[in-house]
């Protein structure tokens, strides 16, 4: 339907919509996060749900204590290698459609603890992340901005066709490999389905292509 006509109709109090828009409208305004904090970022996550920042304005205040009822996993904090299998398992137990916000430097890359032997260098090694928020910790405004970005992402999702999201595609997996404790590191150290080592595009000399793919 023509956007101009739709806007004109809405001014007259007539709402025109289709099934996909209705579906996305419902989903984006009722994102229920998993009640789940890992480190100090969780304090900011809690603050963003309270009266001062009030995440309830976006329909996302219902923090569920069970992954079976949650749509969104906010990975808020440092993921130790001891905790990583639990995070992935909780993600696997969430019903589709499910989304992940990687909150803060630690959840993105290990942050200030990246050199630690016990720290996972980013949750995106095991599960697909939708929104990254930088910061150490990110302020509640940043989390709300991430939530709004996620809402825009949900709004743009197609119900049918090849570009439809994972949860509508029967061929794409809903569960991801849960790492196990190995002798020196988690096994596997990353899930190749969702993560590849970033390639550095630097040529040191004219004929040196060691850093390129």
């Amino acid at each position, binding site marked *: 339907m023509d956007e101009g006509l739709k806007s004109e109709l809405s001014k007259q109090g007539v709402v025109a919509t289709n099934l996909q828009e209705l579906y996305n409208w419902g989903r984006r305004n009722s994102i229920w996060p998993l009640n789940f904090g890992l480190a100090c970022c969780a304090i900011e996550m809690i603050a963003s749900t309270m009266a001062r920042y009030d995440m309830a304005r976006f329909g996302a205040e219902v923090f569920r204590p069970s992954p079976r009822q949650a749509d969104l996993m906010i990975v808020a904090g440092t993921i130790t290698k001891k905790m990583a299998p639990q995070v992935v398992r909780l993600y696997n137990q969430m019903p589709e459609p499910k989304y992940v916000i990687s909150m803060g430097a630690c959840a993105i890359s290990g942050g200030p603890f990246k050199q630690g032997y016990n720290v996972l260098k980013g949750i995106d090694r095991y599960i697909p992340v939708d929104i990254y928020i930088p910061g150490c910790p990110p302020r509640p405004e940043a989390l709300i901005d991430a939530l709004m970005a996620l809402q825009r992402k949900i709004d743009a999702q197609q*119900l049918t066709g090849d570009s439809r999201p994972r*949860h509508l595609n*029967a061929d794409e997996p809903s*569960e991801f490999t849960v790492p196990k404790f190995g002798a020196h590191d988690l096994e596997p150290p990353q899930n190749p389905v969702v993560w590849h080592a970033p390639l550095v595009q630097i040529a040191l000399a004219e004929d040196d292509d060691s850093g390129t793919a």
Partner: protein
Amino acid sequence: MKPDSYLPIVILLLGAVGFAVTPLALAWLWAKNFSPSKPGHDKNSIYECGLESTGDSWVQFNPGYYLYAIIFLVFDVEVVFLLPFATAFTGFGIGECLAMLVFILLLIEGLAWAYQKKVLTWT
């Protein structure tokens, strides 16, 4: 009573059933048309604390508490009725006395059953 006087109840019943069934049917249709079911090992596991689930959700609980409930009932009911018996005891005729004794005997029978089942021992 006219037979059509039940019509409002039938309409309300249909409304109530429709209210419950329609969302379920719509969800079923939606899942069938758009959203494929994706069960898996983790998703179907019985607990959701993040750790690997062990065992079965069909565990047996010890139902021994019902014995205590029955014995409590025996003594509780006995006390409730013995008090009025005691206050009216001198005015009883032979009929009331027999009725009272039958009642107490029934309760004593319950106590004897519990004693025979050895639920009164504390070990």
